[in-house]
């Protein structure tokens, strides 16, 4: 028997580190997010797809996104709505700023307690840090089991879920009982595209802060459609100890950031002319590097 579930997908808006310019860092050594294209963290899209498939096969299931970031991270919730999620929350507050993975997990876990889901799904890691820490840290804070590196749900029913995990040198099939935390690998199915119907329905979904920039007619239009409201939660909306949020709650500190300096070697420049290549190969053979 299947039953309806409440699923929360943790998703992060990340700077597209695959394409970074020189103004990407501030003088203090933190990321200058404003200078970079912001994208939906790739593995979090795989997590969303896994949640949406559980929703497809278990009628009545709801999928909500939870994202933490500045105001513009509301894009993450909208993107989720366009692809089939039912709602989402933006966790945003200046007091969350400067959080390392531990303080991030703490804030997320406080928000998750308020949402009270049966299942939490997150991408394995985010491309701006590649730490893969937040999923397991959230699970620990909630006192829940975790299954990391999931690439496939094999079966689900009666609160039991069986999944295949991708390890570095193999695969493992494991079974757990809800509630629990899953982290999803890039080897899991890719996320479905935006759905035209949902795009029409949710294109005006906005947070309260975003609405403030609009005129009164628009606000009125918006207030008549409560499904367009993206809740914005700050420190006062979740129960938690303030000293565990943000920079204060972060045990790790950045001591120093350096731009990359190579130890410059005495490098010989060669052209692609036959003579250059032939003399290089002869030299490598003579000094037993090759051959």
């Amino acid at each position, binding site marked *: 028997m299947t039953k309806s579930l409440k699923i929360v997908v943790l998703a992060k808006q990340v700077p597209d580190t695959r394409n970074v310019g020189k103004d990407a860092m501030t003088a203090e050594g933190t*990321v200058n997010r404003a200078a970079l294209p912001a994208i939906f963290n790739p593995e979090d899209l795989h997590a969303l797809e896994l949640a949406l498939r559980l929703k497809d096969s278990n009628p009545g299931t709801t999928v909500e996104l939870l994202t933490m970031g500045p105001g513009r991270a509301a894009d993450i919730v909208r993107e989720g709505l366009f692809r089939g999620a039912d709602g989402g929350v933006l966790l945003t507050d200046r007091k969350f700023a400067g959080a390392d993975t531990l303080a991030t997990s703490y804030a997320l876990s406080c928000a998750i307690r308020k949402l009270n889901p049966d299942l939490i799904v997150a991408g394995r890691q985010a491309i701006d840090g590649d730490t893969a820490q937040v999923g397991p840290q959230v699970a620990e804070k909630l006192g829940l089991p975790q299954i990391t590196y999931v690439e496939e749900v094999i079966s689900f029913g009666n609160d039991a879920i069986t999944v295949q995990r991708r390890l570095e040198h193999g*695969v493992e099939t494991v079974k757990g009982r809800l509630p629990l935390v899953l982290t999803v690998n890039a080897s899991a199915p890719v996320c479905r595209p935006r759905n035209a119907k949902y795009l029409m329905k949710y294109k005006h979904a906005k947070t309260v802060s975003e609405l403030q920039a609009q005129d009164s007619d628009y606000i009125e239009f918006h207030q008549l459609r409560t499904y367009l409201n993206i809740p914005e939660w700050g420190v006062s909306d979740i129960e938690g100890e303030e000293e565990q949020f943000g920079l204060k709650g972060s045990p*790790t500190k950045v*001591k120093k950031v*350096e731009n990359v300096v190579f130890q410059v070697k005495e490098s010989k420049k060669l052209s692609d002319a036959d003579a250059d290549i032939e003399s290089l190969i002869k030299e490598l053979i003579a000094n037993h*590097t090759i051959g």
Partner: protein
Amino acid sequence: MNNIFVYCETEKGKIADVSLELLTKGRELAKRLDCKLEALVIGHQLAGVEKELYGYGADVVHLADDARLEPYSTLPHTSIVVGLFKEEKPQIALFGASSLGRDLAPRVSSALKSGLTADCTSLEIGDHKDNKGNEYKDLLLQIRPAFGGNIIATIINPDHRPQMATVREGVMRKEKLAEPKTGEVKILDVNKYVKDEDFVISIIERHLEERKIDIKSSPIIVSGGYGVGSKENFSLLFELASVLGGEVGASRAAVDAGYAEHARQVGQTGVTVRPKLYIACGISGQVQHTAGMQESAMIISINSDSNAPINQIADYSIVGDLSNVIPKMIKYYRANSK
């Protein structure tokens, strides 16, 4: 108390290379800090495993031996590590950045509210003065490329213990002690740490694959980046590697683009290699990549961009197109080798 702990991974009684590499690094740090190096092994049928760990410098080996502890499962291992760390209060705790270590270490750090730095490429000891004038002696400096490899960050945990870090396999050197020594075994009472609820996740099936591709031990690596342009163009690299008796590596960008398998990825989030010869083809040279190959004995770069950063660490940089250069290399190698 306040020693350095290394969590040692085992599979069927064999200690993982990454753990032996961490012990090698750990004993250097322990010497600098004048403290002991302690190993923690959690698994089954571990008798005798301590001898190998002494050989890498462990002064104390903690063994948690129970049939339920192998293969690895998150919760029971977390309970043991957290329980032991609460008693022993290590100043530093090191884990492999393997699928196991990256599952376990964040869980432990969350339970202990202690900071954790992932995928360090260098670990050092140093002092720190913060902007309020507080001075800290002998902190673990956790150095890692960050932000897609565009910068190198030094991370510290000034106020929380243990200072925790993960390191990928192959990043640190593995070296036995010149003079073998012995140490002390401490058998842990597993039931003191582990609860029945820790076994709620059951492992139904496991398939471990042999490592088919092993570029780490190859003396010659021909590596390709995004600049190679396509999966088809990688066949040129395979041809050169096979002629020279080497293996093919790839940058993260090339792997992300689907040009090569992940097992071939060289760099911070792949493997670290130190071959006799590294030929970097169409690789720009982000730190993310160079962190994993800069100790190669000789580096040749082939790039159409004469200003590619990789050229700064290359012994030879050939400016030109791969499809032109590689066939010439093959031709002259065949003509000149015996």
